[in-house]
Every structure is written in structure tokens, then in C-alpha cells.
């Protein structure tokens, strides 16, 4: 029971943050409704593994983020039907790209940290296999990110050396942030790199 409390708190924080998009009069009620579903998910005995229940709860709160984005867009459209409302909707749709990828990144990071902490709490001895396994995974992930940065023809928002420093500074977090927003996909990066060559 006590193991689910941090997950529930994280999910509640995510839900509360999503609810800020809603108009003030329905915000509190929606927030209450969605937070009340979390115990049902975290105590859902049809999902056997607690970690899967935690993932489900976090995915649930990510879905709430999508929900409030849609609801706020819909209410904005009905409130100010016209050019201004349309432009507002178009802008929020464009801004959703890096933002939603960042949300996914934060969720991945939380799950990784949660799994690592629970594993280490079960085996606190520094010579035990989980400790070595986590170190190896961290090193492999950092190496993967650094190699990816080195081989990329271009990265977004920051220079390559800054992304490399960020990846080294915070082991899973920096790499996850880079992969979520700094990395340029292969399909997007190919045309500019061939254009630069001549």
C-alpha cells in the first residue's frame, strides 16, 4: 500500500497541472473527479504487478493532459468563434509538439527513478547485482546518448557540447531530455545535411 503513495502523489500533481488549462469554474470539480480515479487504478487487482499499476496511473494522468487540452480548445472555440479563436487553436496545436514529448519524457524519467529506487531499497548492498546492473545501464544509456549526439548532423535548441554536458550531468534525466526535445529525427535531419554539403 505504502509503495503506491508516491506514484499517486506524482499523478495528482500531473492532473492538477493539466487542470490549470481549464476555465476556473470547472477546474476544481474536474481535478477532484480525476484524482478520485487514481486509487481505483492503483488498487486494481486485475493488474497483477504493482509497477504496471503505477505505469497505468501515470498513463492515465498523461491522458488527462490530452483531455484538458481538447476541452480548453473546444471551450475557446465556442467562446470566441472567429479568427482569433481559430488562430488560438492553431497555435496551441503547434505548441503541443515539444510539450507533449516533454510530458512523455518526464513520465519515463519518473518510472525509471521509481524502478531504480525500489530496486535499490530492496537490495541496499553496493556489491549486489541490482547496483551493478543499474550502473551498467546508466553507463550504456549515457554512451548511447553521447554517440547519438556525436553522430547527429544537427541538434535542436542547444549546441552539441551543451547537450553532451547535460547528458553527463544528470544521468537518466539529461539523456531523456535530449532524446525528447534535442534530437532531430533521421527523416527530418537528412534533407538539411545533404543541402549543407555542397
Amino acid at each position, binding site marked *: 500500500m505504502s509503495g503506491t503513495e508516491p506514484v499517486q502523489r506524482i499523478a495528482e500533481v500531473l492532473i492538477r497541472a493539466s487542470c490549470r488549462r481549464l476555465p476556473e469554474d470547472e477546474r476544481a470539480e474536474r481535478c477532484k473527479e480525476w484524482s478520485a480515479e487514481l486509487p481505483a487504478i492503483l488498487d486494481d487487482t486485475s493488474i497483477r504487478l504493482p509497477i504496471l499499476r503505477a505505469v497505468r496511473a501515470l*498513463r492515465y494522468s498523461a*491522458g488527462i493532459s490530452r*483531455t484538458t487540452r481538447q*476541452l480548453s480548445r*473546444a471551450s475557446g472555440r465556442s467562446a470566441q468563434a472567429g479568427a482569433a479563436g481559430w488562430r488560438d487553436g492553431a497555435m496551441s496545436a503547434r505548441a503541443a509538439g515539444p510539450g507533449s514529448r516533454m510530458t512523455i519524457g518526464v513520465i519515463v524519467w519518473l518510472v525509471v527513478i521509481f524502478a531504480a529506487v525500489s530496486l535499490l531499497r530492496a537490495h541496499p548492498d553496493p556489491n549486489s547485482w541490482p547496483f551493478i546492473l543499474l550502473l551498467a545501464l546508466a553507463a550504456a544509456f549515457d554512451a548511447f546518448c553521447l554517440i547519438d549526439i556525436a553522430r547527429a548532423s544537427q541538434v535542436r535548441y542547444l549546441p552539441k557540447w551543451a547537450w553532451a554536458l547535460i547528458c553527463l550531468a544528470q544521468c537518466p534525466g539529461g539523456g531523456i531530455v535530449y532524446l525528447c526535445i534535442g534530437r532531430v529525427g533521421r527523416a527530418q535531419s537528412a534533407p538539411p545535411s545533404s543541402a549543407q554539403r555542397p
Partner: protein
Amino acid sequence: MCSLGLVKLTAPLERVLRVLLADPVAPHYGYDLMKAANLASGTLYPMLARLQEEGLVDSQWEDRSPDAGGRPPRKYYRLTAEGARVARLELAHASTASASTRRVAARPAHGTPGSAL
């Protein structure tokens, strides 16, 4: 008269309506519907909000004091009388329509409709 108004009958909506129609008077909470209709929260809640706006679904807070079992009160959804009527008609219409589109869709040139969400 027998339409869902602004709401288009998509596959997820059809699943939700089927679950709600299976027992029209039983109240359902969000996670219950998510599991029964096999939908993500990001699909279900916008849909419920639209159905509620159209007056086809109404919601009600669970009647229980917050500290009774440690669990906070939930919000329950169920079809209104109008909603049950419309849902039955739409589902009946959809099942006859899908039978006829299946014959049309047998031709390979028919493009798959993109998900609207």
C-alpha cells in the same frame, strides 16, 4: 432527430455507448468505463464531456462522506433517457451501415479513414 448532433459515431464512441447501454441505469465511473471499453483516458473524457454537453449522458457525484472508507467520492456517469434512445438508434444504424460498407470496402482502392482525434 435521432442523431448524436455534433458528435460523430467513431469506433471508440461506439464502444462506450455499448458499455453504457449494456445496463442503462447502472452508474459507471471513469476508470470503469476505460476498462470496459478498452479506451485511454485521453479519448474517454473528451467524449464524455461532449456527450454530456449534448444532454445524452449525465453525471452524479457518489453519495458518501469522504472519510468513510478512505476513498474520495467518485463521479458516476450514465445515459439519460434521451441518450439511451439515441444510442440504441445509432448503434442499430451503425451495425446495418457497417454491414453494407464491408461490402464496399472489399475493393482495395478504398482508403482507410484517418482517426479524427
